């Protein structure tokens, strides 16, 4: 999964018009997607029936479990990735100004971590491993990738056009609103019946 942004960051692609900036923006978008896929995968387990213990426990809904999963993914996966990519960008480009291009992708990161849990889904270890092969996952991947690529294009364009910081401000406002709504929705979520 991480191969694509690295390819875009490589020096050969940098020489092409605009590809250097696009590569950095694309890496940022990919970093935003990483927790989404990790959390999505974390819901599958061979011992999914053991997750009944979560449902029997006196918890109003899956929100505390989802929060724990988010924290784990952020600490053990996302942060090291962000640092690693920042280092790669800095090494390859030799300047720190381009690092700002990672920001639009990183701003979407909190939203992407919440998306898998909306509607009480993606409770950790609660679904059979076989369901991981569901074809819907491929489609989800495609949609998210499309969004990420679009954001990368937008970022590159705004960077070249000179209104990158306006884009960032707008994105922060939209992302904060969406994040707040999603958090409220998740906190009020109750366990769905196992029908």
């Amino acid at each position, binding site marked *: 999964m991480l191969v694509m942004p690295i390819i875009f960051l490589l020096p050969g692609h940098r020489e092409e018009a605009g590809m250097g900036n696009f590569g950095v923006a694309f890496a940022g978008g990919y970093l935003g997607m990483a927790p989404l896929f990790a959390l999505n995968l974390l819901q599958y387990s061979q011992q*999914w029936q053991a997750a009944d213990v979560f449902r029997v426990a006196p918890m109003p809904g899956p929100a505390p479990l989802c929060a724990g999963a988010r924290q784990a993914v952020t600490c053990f996966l996302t942060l090291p990735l962000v640092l690693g990519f920042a280092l790669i960008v800095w090494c390859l480009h030799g300047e720190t100004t381009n690092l700002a291009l990672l920001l639009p992708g990183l701003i979407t990161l909190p939203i992407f971590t919440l998306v898998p849990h909306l509607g009480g889904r993606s409770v950790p270890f609660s679904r059979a491993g076989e369901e991981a092969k569901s074809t819907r996952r491929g489609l989800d991947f495609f949609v998210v990738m499309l969004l990420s690529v679009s954001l990368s294009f937008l970022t590159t364009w705004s960077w070249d056009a000179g209104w990158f910081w306006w884009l960032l401000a707008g994105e922060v406002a939209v992302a904060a609103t969406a994040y707040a709504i999603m958090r409220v929705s998740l906190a009020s979520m109750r*366990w769905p019946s196992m029908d």
Partner: protein
Amino acid sequence: MISLQQLTKHFGGQIAVDGITCEIPAGQIVGFLGPNGAGKSTTLKMLTGMLAPTSGTATICGFDLQRDTLEVKRNVGFVPESGAVFESLTGLEYLEMVAALYAIPEAAARARIEQFIAFFDLSFATLTDKLLGAYSKGMRRKVVITAALLHNPPVVFFDEPLDGLDANAAVGFKALIQTLAREGKTIVYSSHILDVVERVCDRVLIIDKGKLLLDGEPEALVAASGAGTLERLFTQLTGGTELERRRGGFREDLPSMTDRARPAAPGAPDRALRRLFLTLFLRGRSARGLRRQNVPQSIALKLSWTLLLYVAVGSMALAFLTAPVFRLSIYLHGATMVLCGMFIAASAGEVLFNKEEADILLHRPVTSQALLRAKIIVLLQVSLWLAGAFNLVGTFAGLMAPDASALFPLVHAISTVLEALFCTGFVVLGYELCLRFFGRERLEGVMTTVQILVTIAAVLAGQVPRLLGYANLRAPHRRVSVVAQLVATRVVCRFRRCARRERGGQVVAAGRGRSGARDGGRVARPRENGTPLRDGPANAGRGERRTPDPARQTPLARHHRPYAALPLVAAQSDQPRLVSPHHQLPPARSRRQIARLSRHRPDARDADYLSPSRSP
């Protein structure tokens, strides 16, 4: 302590629990009995808050199940039937996790855990050092029971608690629940082991088909019914006696059932396999998940997702449509088609893993050739559906392009269909090769690699020709690329015909060369008298209704007769051959018998190979 008032649960149209009403006081051990599917586990899941009742109410310790769910959960301990635990945790880690879920302080939890491990004769070192995956089933069950009792609940539900416990542990467990009852806890004990229930429980509830049939003390119920034992009473109530009666009749009926077996209609087993494969494929799920999703919903979901994507991608492309970007729009369309290929690949992979389940669902062993044939045909069929759907939108979108030539719809249609065929061929062949080289266990690991290869192949097959010469059909490189694509597709079609040829005299294989390609797939029906049609002066060279000359066929091809392949599998083993009355397959002959028969009677009919009365 527990009060159920008309508790009901429906799953769609099916009634799982039908208005159960009862009161259970504190300190009572209640045996909850019923045959499989009676609604025991559903009732227990409702009482633990895992399932929402359709109607009716229940209170536990005075808390309403639906209003005060959290309070109910605090007062309930549940040992599920599965006894599943997270195997990558140690026993202690698991128990501490459960304690944290119930907000039990760490010190208190540790003390309680030590109390239980001493009772169950588990060593603390095992609990701290070994992962649960390394525990025996009985040890895991003990950990699960400990987890359920860790928060000292006043009500405990046990669903088949003795499953996996050895005799000593079972005796210990019975002593434990009696101790718990003496402490004033209410125990609801669901089990199939009736003598244990009879000895341990103060009261018995028997349910069947969701209805409560009997409620009372075991001795009193047995005495009142005159059944003698609880087991006999149980079988009388739940239809077990009827099963016993039928068992005798079944033994008498069995020979006549096999006598009545007739040869299946030609192609029927293949059709059944294809139907099964298609069903599994469309659901994108394994056979185990059959009940989870219905087909129309699944198809609608998949198609709507794919079309939505297509519209999104197409709209993006059209928004920027200028002459140079026209190619980009084509490329994006192709990229969506590639996604479609991956989509198919993922579904196909899912189904491929379930050959054993296909055996079970079809009530007979499935040969790998038959399975491969079914996969190819079904995947081609679905690919063409998808290609058709894409074409409709793609053609209209393409016609809106200002520089589109008049031939655009035609080329678009041909390219997309070819691409779908090509992609499908790669998917099936790729999976088959992986299955052979890596084995079923490791296939899952290489699935992603195969998908990537399929994607690359589809890109090469479909996108390169488009990008090279879509706008100018007369360009030589376009002709070359189209020819290359046709050749590649022909390989796939050839593969399909090879599979068909294995059906022998029923479906006539296409001959080599162009005439064969035209006639591929025509069906030669045997004449009324059973003599197969053969090449003769009248139809020689016309390529129609030909049957392969047995003299020119390989021995393997001679043996492969319709519906003969399946019984052959059974005939190879020393096990008694099973003939499914459902499919009415005829008795099989061994390979040696068939070889001898075909040597002596090259014009023999299919029935000759299968019917015992016609043996030479």
